[in-house]
């Protein structure tokens, strides 16, 4: 039981960075950024490769830089070259498959079984006993979250939020939407890559398919978090991503343990939940309209 709790919290913390990234792109900037899947693997691949050469910390930063570069490509495609935003993400994501293979040395699976990772280095400090990896993962995620909240209160951060909130206003004010969108997508993908980097060092391997569907999982976490914490300020939104991510991993563990849903079906269930959650406002207004219609028809019969 302790093991389940521990792994759940660990995974929740590590993957929370992805939902944080989606909070930035999907909620704040109002862009569905499909670079996410590829950026996650990119971060993982770069981190594992750099760690293999003996620099685990450098691995994290290199991964973030690589993720930011991927985000930058998507941003240029959509702001400068007029590619529709969803398509821009898909195009980058497709290209990233090759880049990721390259980053892993042209194999689909890379391991770092004997090398030092940030986790082994932290364990050697002796802090937290058996909970060391949870503590380290939490530190990274909390630090990223605090920095994100801080950033969104700065001049650029506020401009970025206005870009997603009221494009009309931005066009008439001294904000260049090309810049804000680019900065936003760079940061979002750097966060996603950081998540991949931490997961890669934690499981001591990188796999070319590790990112499949991660964007949907991240959105599921985001929505679960928002349902629990309600939407509100930026700080609340960022906390919600962490809460949502942990809850999602608990549900995942529960399904895995009890086998209520066959584990092979989990992605389908996740996709269903995300689709339903995003469609909810529309469904709700449709139901209330049908109700009103039925009500008024009944009234006329009297």
């Amino acid at each position, binding site marked *: 039981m302790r093991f389940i709790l521990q792994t759940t919290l660990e995974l929740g913390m590590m993957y929370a960075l992805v939902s944080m990234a989606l909070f930035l792109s999907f909620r704040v900037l109002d862009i569905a950024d499909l670079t996410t899947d590829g950026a996650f693997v990119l971060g993982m691949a770069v981190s594992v490769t750099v760690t293999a050469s003996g620099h685990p910390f450098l691995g994290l930063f290199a991964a973030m830089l690589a993720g930011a570069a991927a985000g930058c490509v998507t941003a240029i495609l959509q702001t400068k070259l007029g590619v529709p935003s969803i398509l821009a993400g898909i195009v980058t994501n497709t290209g990233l498959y090759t880049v990721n293979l390259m980053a892993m040395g042209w194999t689909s699976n890379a391991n770092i079984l004997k090398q030092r990772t940030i986790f082994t280095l932290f364990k050697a400090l002796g802090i937290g006993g058996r909970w060391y990896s949870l503590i380290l993962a939490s530190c990274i995620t909390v630090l990223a979250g605090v920095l994100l909240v801080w*950033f969104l*209160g700065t*001049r*650029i951060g*506020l401009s970025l939020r206005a870009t997603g909130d009221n494009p*009309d206003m931005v066009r*008439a004010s*001294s904000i260049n939407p090309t810049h804000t969108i680019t900065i936003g997508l760079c940061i979002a993908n750097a966060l996603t890559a950081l998540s991949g980097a931490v997961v890669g060092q934690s499981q001591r391997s990188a796999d070319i398919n590790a990112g499949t569907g991660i964007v949907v999982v991240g959105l599921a976490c985001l929505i679960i978090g928002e349902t629990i914490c309600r939407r509100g300020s930026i700080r609340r939104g960022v906390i919600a991503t962490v809460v949502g991510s942990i809850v999602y991993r608990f549900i995942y563990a529960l399904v895995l343990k009890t086998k209520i849903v066959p584990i092979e079906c989990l992605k389908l269930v996740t996709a269903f939940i995300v689709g339903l959650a995003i469609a909810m406002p529309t469904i709700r207004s449709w139901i209330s309209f049908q109700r009103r219609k039925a009500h008024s028809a009944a009234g006329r019969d009297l």
Partner: protein
Amino acid sequence: MLDVQNISKTFNPGTVNEKKALSGLSLHLDKGEFVTIVGSNGAGKSTLFNAISGSFFVDEGHIALNGKDITYVPEHKRSRVIGRLFQDPLRGTAPHMTIEENLSLAYLRTNRSKAAFSHVSKQEKAFFQERLALLDMGLENRMQQPVGLLSGGQRQALTLLMATLTPPDLLLLDEHTAALDPATAEKVLQLTDSVIAEHKITCLMVTHNMSQALSLGNRTLMMADGRIILDLSGQERAGMSVESMVERFRVQAGQALDNDRILLS
């Protein structure tokens, strides 16, 4: 201050929808002038504003602000020194951001001294609150509420405050009170007048209310067919009545004033 020389703009050239919105328009504004603009529907008033603020580039002519040619300067760069309010009160504020965040953004983006990662300080927040109190709408106690909860009039007043928090070199008001109820419109107009007087802002204001056009500011322009056909100031303007101005318009433009809102007001 503002020098518009011989600008022209044609939309959809070479198609059946071709429309010459501005034709060889010239205009000079001195610092501190408050100019009202009236004109028929489609006379080019908003197009003139779009040209000055850089929503599009003009086909011909030049625009200079403070002695600097800005004809090909992109919109977001011009708007550091040009403030603009639209008829639609929803266009000037971000609905999901709080009042304080909207003001912070307006303040940080216009202050050249502010670095990219700067935050607003406690004193600056207090300054926002102080300015909000001047609106007399109770907004100073609602700093943490999202702007989406405010009424149209409150949002427009807030937009005005945001545009003038750091006084712009030039303020463009495009019928900014037309979508508000009469009482709120009056209030926003008073605020406009006082804020312009306080900071001696150079201002261009489009209005459909003829008596307002004559009573506010110190110069009145009438536009038709993408040109300025009447430029009133000083003694001539002081002695002008709404009726005589409508008559002058008919003579100058060779057509009756057909702005339905002018006729109805």
